[in-house]
């Protein structure tokens, strides 16, 4: 179904913005409660050590200090809960051993943060240092086995043809690919590549504030989270409470990007301390400790191999990789590679064999970071395809087109048995090649080369799988069962017409910058004809929102947006009965627009929403027997994920004297189905692309061999600044999906999934005349310069 109504598809200034641009938005750290106390953590300086003793006496003697807690105080609460409990679960505080630098050993609670930090310095911890296991290849040898109670540092191995035993019967492509390799008309390209570990760096550090009410026997937790309902479940399960005794509020969330899609020990610990000390307890992460206390992302090394004919037919794509899980498994840690597996074949109808080993190391936990597995998948595949195209001397666009699923193939089944809803990949790529003037760029490149300048043109395609998701995936672990909430990833929305005719929309998902308040108001305004200014969208508060899964995996619009659309439909249906009664017309003839309703063909025959609401709340004025009130809740459980896609082109110039990379142009052609607010969709792409460029050029979480995190500040972990990025040139195609009635697919991660390899492909293209075939990210000047020297020497 195509949505062609006034608000959906329109540019609407955001409802969120007036507060935020005036400094009047409220984030967790802006909330103050009477008598609150503040936490500082004592953190391990060692990557792996036995804790001999913890002496808190000096800390407790500091004025203002109320308590110092260790694992002995909280062991009975059990470890931190996780969805996929493969690997070692994280103890709430270090239990006898520490397993990464920065692991919290003790928690100090004091009257203010300055005192708490002083006291944390005064806690004396004696350690016996143990050898650490850092680096995937080393850790996978089990030479230093990290956890005594686990068999191996290799926690699990995901294999594409057997990723969900008992559910999918899949072809093992290994024999076919092995046979193809024996053919004499094939070429084989193979490259080991690093997809480096990243630190998410939401600009708002995480912050928590707990207020345990002994009088009302419930706890309120303010937390900067993408998943407030899941957090409430985890707290309830941990403390043995019913979930309705835990009230979680995520107010403004200053960026999430997946790192706030987790339940963290601090969220549990401040509740514990608030209960013990009978006072509100707060903790706000510093940027430095965010490297220790918030999850990291990516961290893969793998060898990608393409076997294909000399005229561009790919006969097999293999990836043999390891993914760094860090020391402890949290929410979805070990499942992140599966999300990559979902997108392993990209836009291509090719045989795929993937093996990803999940390896524990003495480092911070990894989990979902924008794209979560899918950027890694796209990176390996699209780098390998570019190498293959270069090897056989074929246009990189032509190689891709030759192997794409074609429009008529949809719905298309991927090699791992999933069904892609819709796609028209060639149209999108062709439009991109024309928009960017690919042919002209290659001419410009040739001209530049003749002048001694190194310009590169990089192309890549991606498929994102998002809109999670189908209820059946809860059986795999994509639900909140681990947090004591037996659920799937369904969406929810509640639309309430208030007695004055305004509307309040309660949603089960919430923004961390994505503009939900605006987009959801557009959906409801469209269905009901209520003005945007008369609609308030409420989110992030578990006591008033319908049960909700949260914001991640580019799922909100496609799943919760659809639920809200369906709730609005229910309201519309009942309101039509009311208006039919009021205007003495047939309900089928009632239309909603311009702040009220009218009879079709008789636009003068109108009632306002205030008048409709009055009849709803005074049922004696309505049709005989009608129930009072006017609100509806709907949940939506999609039958499939959605599969947005697109292709990107980057144009870069490399200074071969310094290794510096300049991005001259970045052109993206994305297809996310229907677009509710093009301004917001483009904004999601801008930010997503910037994060992919950050990975390509700048960002890397670096551990030394002893497990010290060397990149804990924004000086050592450089994000892209305004001078590093170009204006982005965006355009789109629209291929609808029938997975949901809005026809929307999701856009939150597409920019990130599509961009890193586009940049690397461009840099390698620039340096091809110098013999450079690959450089591992991040492509900082020194590394690029070194790659040029190495290629020249070779």
């Amino acid at each position, binding site marked *: 179904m195509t949505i062609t109504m006034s608000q959906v598809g329109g540019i609407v200034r955001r409802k969120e913005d*007036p*507060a935020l641009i*005036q400094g009047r938005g409220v*984030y967790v750290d802006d909330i103050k409660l009477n008598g609150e106390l503040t936490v500082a953590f004592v953190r391990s300086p060692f990557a792996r050590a036995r804790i001999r003793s913890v002496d808190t006496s000096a800390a407790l003697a500091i004025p203002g200090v109320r308590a110092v807690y260790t694992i002995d105080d909280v062991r009975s609460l059990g470890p931190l809960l996780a969805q996929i409990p493969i690997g070692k679960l994280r103890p709430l505080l270090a239990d006898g051993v520490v397993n990464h630098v920065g692991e919290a050993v003790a928690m100090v609670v004091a009257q203010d943060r300055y005192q708490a930090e002083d006291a944390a310095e005064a806690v004396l911890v004696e350690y016996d240092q143990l050898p650490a296991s850092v680096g995937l290849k080393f850790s996978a040898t089990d030479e230093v086995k990290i956890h005594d109670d686990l068999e191996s540092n290799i926690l699990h191995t995901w294999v594409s043809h057997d990723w969900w035993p008992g559910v999918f019967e899949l072809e093992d492509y290994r024999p076919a690919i092995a046979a193809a390799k024996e053919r004499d008309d094939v070429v084989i390209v193979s490259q080991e590549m690093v997809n480096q570990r990243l630190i998410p760096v939401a600009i708002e550090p995480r912050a928590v504030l707990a207020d345990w009410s002994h009088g009302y026997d419930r706890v309120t937790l303010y937390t900067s989270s993408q998943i407030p309902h899941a957090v409430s479940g985890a707290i309830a399960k941990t403390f043995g409470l019913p979930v309705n005794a835990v009230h979680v509020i995520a107010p*403004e969330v*200053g960026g999430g990007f997946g790192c706030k899609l987790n339940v963290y020990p601090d969220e549990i610990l401040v509740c514990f301390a608030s209960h013990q000390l009978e006072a509100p307890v707060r903790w706000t992460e510093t*940027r430095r400790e965010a490297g220790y206390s918030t999850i990291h992302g990516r961290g893969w090394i793998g060898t990608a191999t393409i076997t294909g004919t000399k005229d561009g037919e790919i006969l097999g794509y293999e990836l043999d990789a390891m993914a760094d899980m860090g020391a402890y498994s949290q929410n979805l840690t070990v499942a992140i590679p599966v999300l990559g597996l979902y997108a392993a074949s990209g836009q291509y109808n090719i045989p795929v064999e993937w093996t990803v080993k999940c390896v524990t190391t003495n480092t911070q936990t990894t989990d979902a970071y924008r794209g979560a597995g899918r950027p890694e998948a796209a990176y390996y595949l699209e780098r390998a395809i570019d190498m293959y195209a270069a090897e056989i001397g074929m246009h990189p666009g032509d190689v891709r087109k030759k192997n794409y699923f074609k429009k008529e193939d949809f719905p298309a089944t991927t090699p791992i048995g999933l069904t892609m809803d819709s796609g028209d990949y060639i149209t999108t790529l062709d439009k991109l090649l024309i928009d960017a003037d690919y042919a002209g760029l290659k001419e410009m490149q040739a001209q530049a080369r003749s002048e001694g300048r190194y310009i590169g043109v990089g192309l890549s395609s991606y498929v994102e799988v998002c809109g999670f998701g189908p209820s059946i995936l809860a059986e795999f672990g994509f639900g909140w069962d681990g947090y004591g909430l037996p659920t799937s990833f369904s969406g929810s929305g509640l639309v309430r017409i208030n007695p004055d005719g305004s509307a309040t929309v309660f949603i089960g998902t919430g923004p961390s910058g994505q503009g939900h308040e605006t987009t959801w108001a557009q959906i409801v305004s469209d269905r009901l004809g209520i003005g945007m200014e008369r609609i308030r969208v409420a989110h992030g508060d578990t006591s008033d929102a319908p049960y909700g899964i949260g914001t991640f995996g580019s799922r909100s619009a496609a799943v919760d947006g659809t639920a809200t659309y369906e709730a609005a439909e229910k309201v519309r249906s009942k309101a039509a009965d009311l208006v039919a009664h009021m205007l003495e017309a047939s309900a089928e003839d009632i239309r909603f627009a311009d702040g009220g309703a009218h009879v079709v063909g008789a636009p003068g025959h109108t009632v306002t929403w205030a008048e409709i609401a009055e009849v709803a709340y005074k049922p004696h004025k309505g049709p005989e027997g009608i129930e009072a009130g006017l609100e509806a809740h709907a949940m939506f459980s999609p039958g499939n994920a959605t599969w947005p896609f697109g292709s990107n082109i980057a144009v870069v110039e490399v200074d071969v004297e310094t290794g510096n990379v300049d991005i001259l142009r970045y052109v993206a052609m994305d297809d996310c189905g229907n677009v509710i607010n093009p*301004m*917001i969709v483009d904004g999601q792409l801008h930010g997503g692309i910037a994060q992919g460029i950050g990975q390509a050029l700048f960002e890397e979480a670096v551990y030394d061999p002893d497990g010290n995190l060397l990149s804990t500040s924004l000086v050592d972990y450089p994000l892209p600044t305004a001078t590093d990025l170009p204006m982005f040139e965006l355009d789109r195609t629209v291929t609808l999906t029938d997975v949901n009635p809005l026809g929307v697919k999701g856009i939150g991660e597409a920019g990130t999934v599509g961009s890193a390899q586009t940049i690397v492909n461009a840099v390698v293209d620039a340096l091809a005349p110098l013999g450079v075939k690959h450089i591992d990210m991040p492509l900082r000047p020194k590394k690029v310069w070194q790659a040029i020297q190495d290629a020249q020497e070779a």
Partner: protein
Amino acid sequence: MKVSMTVNGRLVNGDVEPRTLLVHFIREELALTGTHIGCETSYCGACTVHVDGEATKSCTMLAVQAEGASITTIEGMAMGDELHPVQEGFWERHGLQCGYCTPGMIMSGAALIAANPSPTEDEIRHGIEGNLCRCTGYHNIVKSIEYAAAKARGETPPPADWEEAVV
């Protein structure tokens, strides 16, 4: 230590530890929470305020160093209901997503166009280089400041990307 300064046109007094950062004084003592903290190395710029008209990262200053100074925070930018042109620009050109870097970004943008009423794209990018945004890729922030600069000059702002794209 006693400290006094003018904040958003109002004379304020405080009694602070010498080590108290200006940003903590603004947030905790004055309850002006629009000034944000995103790091502790003066790198992210979320805490940017104007000190005697200069865009300054308020985590780099002690409160006592601001003795006698005139401070403007994001809360002091609008004149009643009338937004500052940079605030208006951010709203009109989708210059913010999560909003966390936004106050600092607006303060830097306002200082930039006060010093240079007609900045080029390149000058805008350099002017906000000390402010990090993780959401927008800066594209719409640059557009927002271009809008604001035009408004402040009394000119019609350049069209939005989407005004060009959408009929």
